[in-house]
C-alpha cells in the first residue's frame, strides 16, 4: 500500500477498471467512446458491476475523474444510464426493506445498544480480536465515504426549510470542522489512513472496494441527489448519527489494543463525542421539525433508516464472512490494472 506522496490529496482519481457490461458502458461514456446498449434486466442490484457503474456516475458530482471532461456530469447519455441503474437499485431496496412509518419507534430501536459476547459486528470483532490487517481493510472500505464525509448529505440542505434545515446544518458544520479545516472529519480520516500505512488519495481504494461497500455510499448519493428522496436522505443521515457513537468507542479500543498512533485513534475518538451530540440534534432539531412540517415524509424517513441499515449489515457480513474464511475482504485486482 502506498503513502501520501504519489498523488496530492485533491487530485481527481483515475477511472476504475470495469467489472461487467454496466460499468463498462459507463466508463465508455465517460471516456467519450461509443456507448454499448445495456440490459439491466438480469443485473444484480447490489453486485460489483452495477454498483461500480453507479459509483462512476455519481463521482462526476463530487471530484470527477482524471481525463474525464467536467461536462460529462450533465451528459444525457450518462444521465440516462444513471437513471436505469438507480431504478434497479431503488426497486431492490424497496422490495427488501419492510415498509413502516413510525419514526419514533424506529429511532427508539436504534438507541438500544446490544452488549455481550453474542453480538456480531465488525467493530465488535475488531475490538475483541481483529488483526491490524483487518483494521486496515476496514478503514480502506470506509474511505470511499469518509474521504468525502458529510458531502452526500449536503445535497439535502436546499431541499429542507426552516428548523429542520438549521438543525441539519448544525451537524454538517461540525462534520466540516466548524470552520477549521484541520478538524474536518474527512481530514482526520485521511490522517488516520496515513498513520496506519494506507494511501489517503481520494478514490485510492475504489478498485478494491466490492459492491457491498460501494452500495452504502451510492445510497447516500442517490437520496441526496433526488429531492423526492429527501425523507430517505434524512433517515440515512439519522441512522449514521444515531448508531456510530458506541461503534466508534469500540474502534478506539481496537486501535489502542493494536498499538495504533494518536492520529489514527483521534478520528474515532472524535466521533464518540461528536455523534453523542449529533444524535440529540438529529432527533430534536432535524427529525421532529421535519415531520412536523412534512408528516407525509415519515415512511421515507423509515425507508432511509432501514435501507441504510440493510446495506450496512450486508457490508458487515461480507467483511466478517471473508475474515472467518481467512481471506481478504477487499477485491484483489490483477497486477497493473489499477491505472
Amino acid at each position: 500500500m502506498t503513502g501520501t506522496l504519489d498523488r496530492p490529496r485533491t487530485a481527481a482519481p483515475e477511472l476504475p477498471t470495469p467489472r461487467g457490461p454496466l460499468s463498462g458502458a459507463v466508463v465508455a461514456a465517460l471516456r467519450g467512446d461509443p456507448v454499448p446498449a445495456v440490459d439491466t434486466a438480469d443485473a444484480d442490484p447490489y453486485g460489483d458491476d452495477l454498483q461500480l457503474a453507479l459509483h462512476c456516475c455519481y463521482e462526476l458530482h463530487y471530484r470527477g475523474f482524471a481525463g474525464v471532461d467536467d461536462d460529462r456530469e450533465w451528459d444525457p447519455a450518462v444521465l440516462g444510464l444513471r437513471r436505469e441503474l438507480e431504478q434497479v437499485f431503488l426497486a431492490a431496496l424497496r422490495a427488501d426493506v419492510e415498509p413502516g412509518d413510525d419514526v419514533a419507534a424506529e429511532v427508539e430501536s436504534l438507541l438500544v445498544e446490544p452488549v455481550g459476547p453474542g453480538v456480531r459486528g465488525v467493530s465488535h470483532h475488531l475490538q475483541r480480536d481483529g488483526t491490524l490487517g483487518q483494521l486496515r481493510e476496514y478503514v480502506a472500505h470506509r474511505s470511499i465515504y469518509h474521504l468525502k464525509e458529510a458531502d452526500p448529505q449536503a445535497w439535502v440542505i436546499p431541499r429542507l426549510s426552516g428548523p429542520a434545515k438549521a438543525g441539519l446544518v448544525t451537524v454538517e458544520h461540525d462534520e466540516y470542522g466548524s470552520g477549521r479545516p484541520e478538524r474536518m472529519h474527512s481530514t482526520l480520516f485521511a490522517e488516520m489512513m496515513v498513520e496506519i500505512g494506507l494511501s489517503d488519495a481520494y478514490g485510492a481504494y475504489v478498485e478494491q472496494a466490492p459492491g457491498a461497500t460501494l452500495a452504502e455510499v451510492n445510497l447516500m448519493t442517490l437520496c441526496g441527489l433526488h429531492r423526492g428522496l429527501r425523507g430517505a436522505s434524512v433517515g440515512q443521515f439519522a441512522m449514521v448519527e444515531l448508531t456510530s457513537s458506541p461503534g466508534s468507542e469500540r474502534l478506539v479500543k481496537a486501535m489502542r489494543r493494536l498499538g495504533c498512533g494518536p492520529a489514527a485513534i483521534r478520528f474515532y475518538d472524535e466521533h464518540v463525542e461528536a455523534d453523542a451530540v449529533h444524535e440529540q440534534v438529529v432527533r430534536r432539531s432535524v427529525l421532529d421539525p421535519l415531520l412536523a412540517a412534512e408528516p407525509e415524509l415519515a415512511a421515507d424517513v423509515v425507508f432511509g433508516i432501514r435501507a441504510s441499515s440493510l446495506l450496512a449489515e450486508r457490508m458487515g457480513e461480507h467483511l466478517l464472512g471473508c475474515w472467518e474464511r481467512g481471506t481478504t475482504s477487499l477485491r484483489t485486482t490483477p497486477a497493473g490494472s489499477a491505472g
Partner: protein
Amino acid sequence: MVEHRLGRPEPTRIVLTEEGPALVSGPVELELPDGSRVRSDRAVTAVCHCRRSKRYPICDASHRRKVRQEGREA
C-alpha cells in the same frame, strides 16, 4: 454570553433532555469540582447528566439502554 444585536444579552439556552445529557449551545468551558476545566468548541455540547459517561463531563451515549446478547459464537 451571546450579545443581542441591540446590545442586550441573550440568555444562554440549555436544553435538558429526559434520558440523557444537557445540551448547551456555543463553545463552553466546564469546571469540575477539583477545579480542572474541560473546554468544548462545538456548536452544541452534550453535557453528561447521568454520570455514566466514561468521558464525564462530556456525554458519550453511555445512557443508552443495553440489551445483553448471550454468546452464540463458539
